[in-house]
């Protein structure tokens, strides 16, 4: 049986291999963290709309993002309902307000969503089933994933939104951390009393559901042609994309995270290259000896590539577990909704292997030039 040369090489100098592995693991960890932040900002951008049940959204052409959603006349929804293929169109009011933390009395931003409870506009039946509670005036549902600055938002708590009394009657979990510290769902009546400038006749969003076999894109175009220029319509997919683009490419936080991912990739490649080049370099004499003994170049390359893969996979395992723990800490401590998604794990593993291989090929050039005779 053949000697497992690549494996033995890894185990040969344990301290040195350990340092190399730490380097690789750190590079992978950095990539995991930055991708996690980026993905969190991405999913967070649409977390509010993900909770609503709609295929096409009608909104003002002046809409910027969820906390700056301009309004349009409600009666336009009648024209939307007349479009063939539209099953329902329900209004939603959205406004950023100030919520007083019931414990500290400090005021913090809170995104309020005003809905008509009888329309059941949410995807999650758990939210829809609690909506009847909102028929009582000044009642609201609170997000259990709100940031801690807003206080303990448990059912039964009384506090103020825009200096108007609000009673928490139920809870749901949405988590909109980056966008607004917290969200609150109220009935239309309560919403209009809290926000004096809001009006029954001016709505922020129209949520449209379409017939099962209809095409959202065609219906969105049809709606747009009827309500433009007072309002516009987007399919769910386009709307999500626009919202994500806004958060990642326009808002400073998103731009920082996007930059972070680029930096992580570049740094990861540099580290992996350094580690593997050092490995090849320090064993150059041994490889040359193999060549002198009559092993062909192909065999030597195979050993090096196998060694690189062993290194990258060995580095991947601790990086994965550390990232897992750090994601957990970030969720609990910093309320950043990062999760270990299987696609990300696979992508990072593939990426690391590719980076390791390309680093190896760069490092191998040195070996090709190595003439056994030179080395002794």
């Amino acid at each position: 049986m053949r000697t497992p040369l690549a494996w033995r090489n890894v185990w040969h100098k344990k301290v040195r291999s350990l340092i190399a592995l730490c380097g690789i693991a750190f590079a992978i960890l950095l990539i995991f963290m930055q991708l996690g932040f980026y993905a969190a900002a991405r999913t967070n951008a649409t977390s509010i709309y993900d909770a609503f049940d709609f295929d096409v959204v009608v909104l003002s052409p002046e809409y910027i993002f969820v906390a700056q959603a301009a309004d349009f006349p409600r009666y336009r929804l009648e024209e939307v309902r007349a479009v063939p293929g539209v099953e329902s169109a329900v209004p939603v009011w959205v406004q950023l307000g100030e919520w007083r933390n019931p414990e500290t009395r400090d005021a913090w931003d809170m995104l309020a969503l005003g809905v008509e409870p009888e329309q059941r506009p949410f995807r999650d039946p758990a939210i829809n089933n609690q909506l009847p509670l909102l028929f009582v005036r000044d009642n609201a549902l609170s997000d259990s994933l709100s940031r801690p600055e807003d206080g303990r938002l448990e059912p039964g708590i009384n506090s103020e939104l825009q200096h108007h009394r609000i009673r928490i009657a139920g809870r749901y979990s949405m988590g909109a951390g980056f966008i607004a510290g917290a969200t609150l769902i109220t009935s239309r009546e309560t919403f209009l009393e809290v926000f004096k400038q809001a009006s029954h006749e001016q709505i922020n969003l129209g949520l449209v559901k379409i017939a099962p076999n209809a095409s959202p894109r065609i219906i969105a175009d049809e709606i747009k042609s009827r309500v433009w220029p007072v309002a516009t319509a987007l399919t769910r997919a386009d709307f999500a994309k626009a919202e994500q683009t806004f958060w990642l490419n326009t808002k400073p936080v998103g731009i920082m995270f996007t930059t972070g991912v680029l930096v992580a990739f570049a740094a990861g490649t540099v580290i992996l290259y350094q580690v593997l080049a050092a490995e090849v370099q320090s064993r150059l004499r041994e490889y040359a000896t193999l060549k002198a003994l009559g092993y062909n170049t192909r065999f030597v390359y195979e050993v090096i590539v196998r060694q690189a893969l062993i290194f990258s996979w060995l580095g991947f395992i601790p990086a994965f577990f550390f990232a897992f723990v750090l994601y957990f800490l970030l969720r609990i401590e910093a309320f950043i909704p990062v999760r270990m998604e299987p696609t990300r794990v696979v992508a990072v593993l593939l990426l690391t292997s590719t980076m390791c291989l390309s680093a190896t090929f760069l490092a191998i050039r040195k070996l090709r030039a190595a003439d056994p005779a030179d080395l002794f």
Partner: protein
Amino acid sequence: MKIAEKAGRRTEARMHRTPLAWRNIVHNKVTMLFSVAAVAFAIIIMFMELGFLNGLYDSQTGVIAFLRADLVMVSRALHIITAHEPFPRSRLEKVAGLDGVSGVYPVYLEDIFSRLRNPKTGIKHHIRVIAFDPGDPIFQSRRINLLADKLRSPLTILFDDRSRRFFGPLRSGMKIELADRAVTVAGTFRLGPDYHYDGNLLASADTLFQLFPNQHRENVFLGLIQLKGDASPDAVVRELNRRAGPDVEIMKKSDIIAREKANWQKTTPAGYVFTMGVAVGFVIGIFICYQILYIDISDHLSQLATLKALGYQNRDLVRQVLTQGALIGVLGFVPAVAVTLGLYSVLTTITGIVTKLTFGRIALVFVLTLGMCLTAAGLAVRKVIALDPAELF
């Protein structure tokens, strides 16, 4: 005598000694470029993450730094300056005549109903309006204090040139739409956006009350207190806090800036994320630097063994490796600072957030760089110590 002679010879030898560490680095130009670039990379990571963090703090406290005041009066309910907690103007007037106070100036703020229409695209964006009485010298910059005089005519504003670009290019003399009313741009100033506000306008208090009926002269957002030259700020703060009333709080300007920073650190994920980024950059730097030194030592193993055989002590070789590590750090640092300056200006163009590279921040990263390179050298030097000349020949 003998000892002195020996010492003399030693210093002489040290002075004439070949700068081995330096020669080693510059020996192979391509490898050197690669190594310096790799180290510079780690340094740039630290600079960038630190820059994100400082950009957050600098921009968030920018408006306070922009205003001239020794002390600031705010509502006790105001815990962060993006909240809306005005206080009665009488509180500010009450302290105007107290010992040591040379002037008190109310500042008003509107950011809810203040939507500014981009004249080109027609889209309205929220903008922060800072209002004051045009005669009050409330700005650090003399130029803006003079410019503020133009705000005496009704419905005129000054536009912050550094505001996000989506407000459109607004020049002096243009008529624009603010809160559904026509206003005239009387001039521009430079403050810059932050993570919360995209841009700023300056207006007279009268213009503000005309545009926004929800605003009232009695509801002051920020009270600026300027002191006489000989007054001790700490003593005045104590006295004013005792006299002003229970619903307001008087702080030194530096204290409210520190409080804002602490607030943003605590309440946004950004603090966590970017501090972690700096730490990761540091550790990555150690690994990169270690690898570079390790390759170099492996490359020169026979030379090092020769030096040892010639009678060089471990101590000399250790010093040589540490010097080499520090040199790589310094060499990487210079291009890293240059690249960082470029990247900062790119980020400023995209986000509008100004990241300043102060001397203190450069010094901090320099110390971190030396720390990371010397740690790496310390790790790599073990191989030199373990080297046995006999083995190599």
